[in-house]
């Protein structure tokens, strides 16, 4: 009896050691990594979407996003969609509008709150991202997002874009074309496509820069945030809703 007890104790200690050791190693590896330059905390990137200018039936922003980020133009319920056109009709008045909806890059993002590993995070410049190295694919962020902005990758992927890491089993969403911004570009693929189509319905810019067009418009016009009642302070604002 004593030997059996002794064996169980030793076995439990050994299993514990084997399970913990790789984790401790990984922590050391991560700590040794060089710190990156980081995002500019003075900036709050955001978008203003003018639903009066947005053309129903036009899908240019969606197509541009797919091309930019290497997404398939696939609308099965299991496929990833980082931006979609939502057609809305007010029940009482019949007023209609076409509204592009993507990650709203909240100042208080629920996805970041609920993520157990910290894979969902908000950069200093307000961009909400998923770290593909620490996302375990639990989908809690998908449950928490009020905007249905997140997609879970249900199938193995091939031919991803070098600038846009994606992979099966992780959650992803609009990055505000962070790879462009970090290279000094001043617009996103969707905003660029909308301007090119002549609609000018999507304006991208720094909400904290009082001289930027987006800050001026937000200051002068009445704009709204989706589900403002939740007080998440999204970086994406809408005009004409």
């Amino acid at each position: 009896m004593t030997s059996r007890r002794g064996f169980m104790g030793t076995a439990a200690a050994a299993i514990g050691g084997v399970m913990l050791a790789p984790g401790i190693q990984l922590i050391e590896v991560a700590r040794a990594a060089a710190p990156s330059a980081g995002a500019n905390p003075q900036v709050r990137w955001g978008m203003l979407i003018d639903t009066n200018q947005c053309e129903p039936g036009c899908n240019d922003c969606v197509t541009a996003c797919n091309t930019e980020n290497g997404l398939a133009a696939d609308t099965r319920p299991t496929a990833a969609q980082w931006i979609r056109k939502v057609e809305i009709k007010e029940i009482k008045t019949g007023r209609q509008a076409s509204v592009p909806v993507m990650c709203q890059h909240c100042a208080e993002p629920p996805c970041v709150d609920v993520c157990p590993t910290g894979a969902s995070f908000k950069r200093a410049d307000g961009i909400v991202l998923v770290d593909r190295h620490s996302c375990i694919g639990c989908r809690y962020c998908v449950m928490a997002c009020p905007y249905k902005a997140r997609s879970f990758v249900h199938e193995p992927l091939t031919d991803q874009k070098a600038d846009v890491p994606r992979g099966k089993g992780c959650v992803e969403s609009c990055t505000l074309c962070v790879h462009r911004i970090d290279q000094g570009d001043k617009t996103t693929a969707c905003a660029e496509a909308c301007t090119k189509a002549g609609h000018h319905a999507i304006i991208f810019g720094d909400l904290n820069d009082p001289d930027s067009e987006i800050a001026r418009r937000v200051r002068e016009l009445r704009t709204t945030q989706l589900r403002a009642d939740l007080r998440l302070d999204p970086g994406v604002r809408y005009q004409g809703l």
Partner: protein
Amino acid sequence: MNADWSSDARRFWLLLVLGGTVTALGLGAAHFMEAHGHIVTGMDNSVVWGLPHVFAIFMIVTASGVLNIASVGTVFGQSVYKARAPLSGLLSVALLAGGLMVLMLDLGRPERVIVAATHYNFRSVFAWNVFLYSGLVAVVAIYLWTLLERRMNVWSKPAGMAALVWRFALTTGTGSIFGFLVARQAYQSALLAPLFIVLSFGWGLAVFLLVQAAMLAWNGRRLDADIERRLSRLLGVFVATSLYLVAVYHGTNLYFARQSTFEAFILRDGGIFPLLFWAGYVVLGSVLPLVLLWRGTGPRAALGASALVCAGAFAFLYVFIIGGQAFPLEIFPGFEVHSSFGDGAIAHYGPRWPEWLLGLGGVGAAFVITVVGVRVLDLLPRDPEPAQ
């Protein structure tokens, strides 16, 4: 010491092979999901938590509830329950392990579970639960030690108290996974934590009664009728209380105008969901067990009621978890909406075979741990012979 069992070692091995096979099938299904992605399940971007979560949450909530037996025995000094405390502790660890196995293997990246164990975001209810779950195993292990090791018996009361407090915290954490989801109409309620605690009482006792009966039967023993009557009555109280809290949850929702379309969906118009709620949870899982427990006598009534309570639990969780996601998010209140991404539309979900096998595999793992634990540690309840 193990005379009851060694007289029929073949039965033990048979049960082990049975449980092992079911567990292996579950692991195989998880491997299949890992290789092909969640595309082989019924889940999509609207219903991201499917049948595996129903199994996992059932087992995790039940793991907490089943520990109630031990708590009543140790903390409140009831000898009938005290005799059952070791089996209750073992079942708790077994069910928790089974539930966590399902939860982990349903991850998009199950091989990254080490990341979940080394990176914590302390604002996340999930991250709290990682500590609550591993902590429960540790607390119950110590508790079992104080119960089984005679020298440590003096410590069993504080250990039992710690287990009681811990299991309340654990089920609060499980309920809060949903309670903190502000965006979803089905959840976002402070009532969910106490509701899950009360549900855990009934589900835990039902599972305990079933397992106890099976283990005793396989050993050619019978449960004392008085003890059975006491436990059955307690199950009735738990089932009735659960039903009351579920009614309050839906009652408050019905009172809020903004929740009325969601309640109409879950309780009346939502097809499979109202059917499972009324026929599965309310009638088969609550009312019928209550009738059986109060009017019926003998082991059949108690076991029938316990089995129905478990079936009702699955119906409840299916409606709660899947139904809550199938109902669309309200991003534009007051508007009719449609899009290519399912906005404004009811999502359709049907579980596929890998999900069933993974869920059952978790149950199989809990079964294996229980069968081995009962044999190795000799944990069957021993009651004093009733005076004739």
